[in-house]
Structures are given as C-alpha cells and as structure tokens.
C-alpha cells in the first residue's frame, strides 16, 4: 500500500509538472496572445505596451516567467492579466457551483444508468432493451450544448417550468438550489447515462454466462438474488472504475459547456472566459486544478478496484 501511495504521488507530481510546462509553452506560442497589448488597450502606443509588459513581468525570459507563475500559484497569489482578481479566490468561489453540478449530475447518471443497464440486460433482445438502446444512442449522440440550449429554450423560456439558469447557493435555499440545477443536471447526465447503461448491459450479459452464475443458480437461490448478488455485483466493478475517471474529468473542467449555457459561475465557466480572453493565469490554474483532480481520481479508482475485486492487489497486474 505504501509502495502504491508513493508511486502515485510521484506520478502525480510528474504529471502536474509536465502539464504546466506544456500549457505555458503553448500559451506563449499562440499568436495574438500578448497580454500586454490587450491590457494596454486598443489605442496604446508601443511605449505603453512596453511599460505594461514590465509591470506584468513579461519582459523576463520564459523560464523565469514560468517559475514566477508557479511560485504565485502555490502561494495563492496568482492574479489574472485581464482583471485584478486573484485566480485562487475565483476558483474557490466557483468550486461549490461546479461540485453541486457535477455531484448531482453524477448521482443522477449513475442511478439511471444502473437501472437502465440492468433492465436492458435482463430483458435483452426484447422491446424494453431495444427501446433503451435507442435512448442510449440518442443520449450519447446529442451534443451537450445543443441539448442545454434546447432545454433552456423550451422548458425555461417558453414553458416557464424552470428558471433560466444562474445559481442559488445550497446554504441559502436548498429548494431553489435544486430547482435551478435540475436542467443542468439532466443535460450533463444524458450523455453519461447512455454510455454507462450500455457498458453495464454488456458487462452483465457477459457475466450471466459465467460459471459462477451457473453455480449460484444450482444453489437454489432466487433468480433475482442471482442477478443482483452475482451478476450485477461483478458487472459493476468496471463501471465504478470508469465512473471515477469520468467524474474526475467532469469536475476538472468537463462541465464547461453546461456551465456556460446555464450561466452557472463554476470553474468551467471561469475557464471558458479565460480562454476567450486568452488570459494565461486562470487558464494555467484551472488546467492544473483539472489535472490534479483527474490524477487524484485515477488513484482513487485504483484503490476502489482493489477493494471491489479481491483478486487485485495494488501494484500488481490483474489475473488473466
């Protein structure tokens, strides 16, 4: 276990380092990315631009700029180029929103995916299965932003059933909090429900042919117990691990489109704005934040896998 933890931590540090360097370099290669020029304004003369550059420390060499930025990130002093906001604070403010969105969506998508996947597998080949398969494929194919926009337009704007986006903190008003998040949750969940229910269905169909399921039936337990305790339990293992990875990715910035359409001031929206303004500091911070979450969840998923499948011991290969 110690071996595993040490290796993963070393891995995480390496990944974060590599990502930060790559983002930094890419940013400095993009045309039109000179922040000094934009901050100085449209009518700035070269002298003004030059002064702004010195102010922002952009006249230093690249490695020095990089190190300075890293230092600022870790001491929480990183400031955006375009506004004077502290990046860390902005991310901190956006975090509850993003987490509300992601956790809620995740619970919804897992519940639905397990239910639909189970039904599909148990009634494989019949009408229920075919209907759910079509639904799943539709869900996977719908672009998130399109779906969000459509839902917003018809259910919020036209039918006035739901509020038109924006966020109400949980601590302020739980009911309103949920009410405002229902459409975003649905939007984010739709893609994953489709995908996960298919994966679960496939795993379950495989598991049903396994020898230990036959043994379970031979023991005389009910068919439902066979399905839940033996088939579903074993089929869930890969699904849970997939979930860990996807959840990490979603929190780390995958909700950007949903947040933008529904105007939820989360980390994703913040990142979107930073991209639009080509504002390096927030971008760097959000990317690192996302990478951190993904690597963290990767590690959690591995631990979880070892917990769920006793044949796996951390740090060793899975049995054939």
């Amino acid at each position: 276990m110690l071996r595993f933890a040490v290796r993963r931590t070393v891995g995480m540090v390496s990944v974060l380092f590599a990502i930060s360097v790559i983002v930094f370099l890419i940013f400095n290669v993009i045309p039109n990315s000179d922040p000094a020029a934009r901050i100085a304004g449209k009518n700035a003369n070269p002298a003004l631009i030059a002064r702004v550059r010195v102010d922002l420390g952009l006249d230093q060499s690249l490695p020095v700029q990089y190190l300075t930025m890293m230092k600022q990130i870790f001491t929480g002093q990183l400031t955006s180029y375009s506004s004077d906001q502290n990046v860390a604070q902005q991310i901190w403010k956006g975090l509850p929103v993003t987490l509300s969105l992601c956790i809620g969506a995740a619970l919804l998508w897992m519940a639905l995916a397990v239910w639909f996947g189970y039904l599909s597998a148990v009634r494989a080949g019949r009408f229920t299965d075919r209907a759910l398969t079509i639904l799943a494929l539709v869900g996977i194919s719908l672009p998130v932003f399109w779906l969000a926009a459509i839902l917003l337009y018809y259910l919020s704007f036209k039918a006035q059933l739901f509020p038109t986006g924006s966020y109400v903190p949980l601590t302020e008003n739980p009911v309103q909090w949920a009410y405002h998040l229902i459409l975003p949750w649905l939007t984010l969940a739709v893609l994953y429900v489709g995908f996960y229910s298919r994966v679960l269905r496939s795993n379950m169909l495989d598991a049903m042919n396994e020898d230990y399921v036959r043994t379970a039936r031979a023991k005389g337990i009910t068919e439902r117990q066979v399905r839940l305790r033996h088939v579903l339990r074993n089929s869930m293992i890969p699904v849970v691990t997939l979930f860990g990875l996807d959840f990490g990715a979603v929190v780390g910035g995958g909700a950007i489109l949903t947040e933008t359409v529904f105007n939820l001031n989360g980390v994703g929206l913040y990142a979107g704005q930073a991209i639009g303004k080509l504002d390096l500091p927030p971008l760097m911070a959000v990317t690192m934040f996302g990478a951190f979450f993904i690597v963290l969840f990767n590690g959690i998923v591995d631990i979880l896998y070892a917990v769920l499948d006793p044949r796996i011991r951390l740090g060793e290969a899975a049995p054939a």
Partner: protein
Amino acid sequence: MSGQPLLEVTDLVKNFPIKSGVFIDREVARVHAVDGVSLVLHEGETLGLVGESGCGKSTLCRAILQLIRPTSGSVRFEGQELVGRSPRELRPLRRQMQMIFQDPFASLNPRKRVGQIVGDPMRLHGVADGAQLKRRVQELLDRVGLQAEHYNRYPHEFSGGQRQRIGIARALGTQPKLIIADEPVSALDVSVQAQIINLLEDLQREFGMAYLFVAHDLGVVRHVSDRVAVMYLGKIVEQADSDTLYARPRHPYTHALLSAVPIPDPRKNAARERITLEGDVPSPIDPPPGCHFHTRCASATDICRHNEPVLVTDDTGHAIACHHPL
C-alpha cells in the same frame, strides 16, 4: 543409435524473477521453474516427460528451444551449443528443431490460411518457394490426414483434432530432426487422441525424427515413449526406459503418481495398492529445502530435509534422484 546424442541438456536452469519495490523494482523472489535439468535424446527415439502442473515441463521445452533464454546451463544440439547464441546464429539450427503445442485453438493464427500456416516455416528457411512450396504443403496436408483443398481454409473451420494435424504438418515442413511436442493430445477427446498418437508414431517411423513428448497423461506417455523422465518442481526425479519405469518405479513420487492414475479396469484398480499424496504441490517460488519432494514423501528422513539428492544413473540406464529409493 549412433554415439553422439541428438540433444544433450546439462544442468539447465530457468528462473523467473519476481520484482517489487517502491521506486525501483528489485528482485524479491524467484520462480524456480526449471531447477537444474539434464537429459539426453538420441536420433529417432522418443523421450516422454511427465509431471503435474507447475513442475516446469513447458518452461523446459521452451528453454531447450531457446524460445526463452535459459538462466544457466547448456543445451547441445548435434554437438553445437545453443545457449547464449544470437538469434541469427540460431536460425539455421531452428530448421532442425520444431514444436507442436498443446492448445489447438490458440496455437494457430486465426487470420492466416492453413496453406500459409503450414508453408511459412519452409519459406522462411528457404526450403521451398512459390509453386513448389504449395505442392509440398499439399503433400504434407495429405500426409497428416487432411485434404489438399484445406489449403485455403481458416483454422476456425476445423475441429480440435484437425487443427492439431495442421500444427503437426507445420512442424514437419522443414524436416526437423527433433520435434518437441508439448501436451499435443491433452485437449483432445480420447478417440481423436488415438488418431493423433497413431499419426505421430507413423510419421516417426517414416521420417526418423526424435520426439520429446511432454504430457501429464501417464497412459499416453507410456504408449509413445521409449524412455520416460519424471519431473517434480523443476527437477527430474527419475528417468528410465518405459517398461521399467512403469513396472518398477523407484522414486516415491513416481510411485505415488502411478498409483494415483485410475486404470480403466475395475478389478485391477481395486486390487492395486494405492498411495494418496497428502496436500498440494508446493510453490516453485519457494521450493522446500533439500529434496523438493520431502514434504509429501512417506519415506522422508532428516537427510532428505537438508541434502538435495543428485540424479544418479545406474548401469541399466535407470536414473534416480533420491536418498531412499524404493
């Protein structure tokens, strides 16, 4: 049989390291798959190799053919040393040594046609090419009991027994002097097994190659072999000619093994003295000290726990590694 043996294996060892570590993997243990094996095979003869799972017989086969690199020891084929040679140097020798595998479903490439599977070794070694190659392949297919038309089919279109015939045809192409058969009939039904065994014997009579025949079925091994070697946990514990080994086994393990095999003859079965070995086969990662078999041996004494017995051959050619042979 001429003076120089076709194949001479001396003290062959193959260990697989088990690595573990925090930052850098270090070897913490070893699987002693083959733990010092010596054997001799002459032209045209069949040496049977028996043992249970984990005894190392499959690893031994691969180590002899240099498909796995031995950890130490020597393998001489027609007097030439194989261990330590580069792949290029081994190439011309590979023509003379071929292998037949156990699993007829896994050992044939499902994406290649039969003609290609059988013909590739000949083509690669420059034995034949083009139209002549095709003719030769068809002759081989015919010889193993398949039809010339099967040339264009894919492996999945055949039964287990037929696939094994394809594997045999493939091994015969380069006219090798040595064929190592690793459990060639274990995956087959009894009646198909008989067909394949008869085929292998006919081919040996016709072409004169030597077989190293590995199997866990003692009846099959007795039938095909001139001499038999018994392996346990990476070592050869007894070796003798077939009839002697089966009639008068001298190693306790051989005796227990033979006694455990049920004979398809109820009266004989009931009349036999049966020895049942207790417990499981120890792991090759941490084999018992001294004689590897002492943990399950009824005749084990103190010396067995500390001293490893050496394989000693008496003047009748019967070799045994035991402090208290029966």
